[in-house]
């Protein structure tokens, strides 16, 4: 009988859990981030000043399990009607989370494919360099967003996962120079003919060391039967390690595009069968040994990037000007954890290096912030 009562109480408790007591008051929060850039290519008299990104963030908590996250972004400050001036106004993220319990939640809306490091975490003070890494632009097309649904959770202490079904690429936008980038549908009347699968595992074996593996696989025909079966398979691994004032990070990514020759025949492009890229970066907070009490940071950093959107081709010779590497040397000064003044000098090199596709150098200055 005693057991019976206990079971009844347990049942009552479980019902209490599942029917969901609103444990937190419904609330709406606003935040944002932004970055102002000055870019001056070597040899040009004066560079360009650009408020590259201004993002407003709105979140709402409905109850303890259900919440909404969104980001609205204005790129390059303005979008002027009736002209070709201006950047882009976009809904960068907008999704609902239903957190059933820590090991399992459901997420639906406009999501970020969790590939690489920058696509998910791109608040400017959290990365070194004025511009995002080239690999996170050319090979992993950040900011990359598509509509979809999936699951996420933390099954064990060291492991987090995310798996989503999202709208796929549209091969009509692929090209030789920027690989998959032009094929993003950005959740704008996305063709849903090719649901794609994406996912990420985060493994943290010890504090300070974080390892990630991610992928994105899906057809990119967008309903166009004449280009065969253009399946894109993108795989990536990343690592971050922090030891006191030293931070190391690296990303490697490779993507294959099936039936690239058919895409090229149809759209008159030079899309490669395989593209890849990687980078390694080391940063050291030089302020810490000089001024141990200070919570400000002065990070000296160096990054080497290699990225090739013409790694393997069918039916045309590789366009070797798109086999590139960058060397970025710079300083990130962070007076607070959420503001950054950035300076860097970037060397852009490519395999061809002729007059038309010459190696180049560029000075970059930037200011970045976030607040939540």
């Amino acid at each position, binding site marked *: 009988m005693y057991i019976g*009562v206990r079971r009844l109480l347990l049942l009552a*408790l479980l019902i209490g859990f599942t029917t969901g007591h609103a444990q937190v008051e419904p609330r709406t929060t606003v935040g944002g981030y932004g970055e102002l850039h000055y870019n001056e290519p070597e040899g040009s008299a004066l560079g360009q000043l650009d408020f590259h990104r201004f993002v407003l963030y709105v*979140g709402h908590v409905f109850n303890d399990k259900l919440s909404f996250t969104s980001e609205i972004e204005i790129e390059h400050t303005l979008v002027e009607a009736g002209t070709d001036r201006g950047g882009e106004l976009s809904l960068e993220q907008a*999704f609902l989370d239903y957190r059933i319990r*820590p090991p399992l939640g459901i997420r639906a809306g406009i999501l970020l494919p969790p590939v690489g490091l920058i696509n998910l975490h791109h608040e400017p003070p959290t990365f070194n360099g004025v511009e995002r890494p080239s690999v996170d632009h050319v090979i992993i097309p950040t900011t990359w967003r598509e509509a979809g649904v999936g699951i996420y959770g933390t099954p064990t202490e060291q492991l987090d996962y995310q798996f989503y079904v999202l709208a796929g690429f549209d091969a009509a936008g692929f090209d030789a120079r920027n690989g998959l980038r032009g094929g993003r549908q950005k959740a704008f009347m996305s063709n849903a003919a090719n649901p794609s699968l994406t996912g990420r595992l985060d493994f943290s074996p010890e*504090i300070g060391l974080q390892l990630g593996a991610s992928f994105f696989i899906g057809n990119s025909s967008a309903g166009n039967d004449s280009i065969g079966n253009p399946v894109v398979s993108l795989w990536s691994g990343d690592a971050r390690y922090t030891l006191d004032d030293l931070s190391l990070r690296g990303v490697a990514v490779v993507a294959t595009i099936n039936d690239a020759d058919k895409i090229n025949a149809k759209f008159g492009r030079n899309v490669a069968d395989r593209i890849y890229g990687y980078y390694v970066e080391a940063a050291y907070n030089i302020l810490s040994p000089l001024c141990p009490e200070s919570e400000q940071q002065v990070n000296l950093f160096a990054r080497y990037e290699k990225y090739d959107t013409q790694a393997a081709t069918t039916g045309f010779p590789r366009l070797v000007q798109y086999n590139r590497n960058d060397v970025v040397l710079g300083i990130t000064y962070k007076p607070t954890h959420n503001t950054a003044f950035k300076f860097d000098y970037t060397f852009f090199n490519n395999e061809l290096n002729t007059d038309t596709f010459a190696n180049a150098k560029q000075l970059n200055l930037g200011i970045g912030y976030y607040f939540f």
Partner: protein
Amino acid sequence: MAIISSNHWWATVGLVVSAALMDVPVVTSGEVSPAELDMAMSSLRRIFPDAQQIHSVTLDLTSTEKQFLAEMSQRHWHGDTLTIFVPVDAGSTLGYAVVDHVKGKDQLITYLVAVSPELSVKDLEILAYREPYGGEVGHKSWQKQFFGKHPGDMMRPGKEIKNISGATISVRSVTLGVKKVLSLLLIVQNRLPHNLKEP
């Protein structure tokens, strides 16, 4: 000092249910919901395995105390009372614990800080994490950095407390939260119950 306060009937119900399930008689509750309270109780039983009973004590906070807190921790305490969980065995008070909420990037993170009678951190538990990302603050390997810390110790994110890339905001929030709870316990130290025992 109010040894028994039951501001919320549902908390009492939750408490009775929890107590019946756990065989740990619980005296009363503070400002936490039943599910959080239930989680807090199981955390406390894990952290203080010798506890025969867990009391709940609610202290009124004066404006001077709250001002001290703001100066010590650069954080404010919302509300005029502080509920402290006090695990006891037959002979003595085993320590103290406080449940609190801090704002992460967007949503509240509910956490529990458990300390020894001398106010050094024994354990930390994230009772509810509601952000889409940054849940690594729930990992014990990260939380262990706080063990043994006293109210006066430096606990700066990125310095004494290691940062987690991709979870910087949560790391910051929880670190400042622990500092806040420790400061508050120090401020009310003279009023903490030292001689609660299992009756």
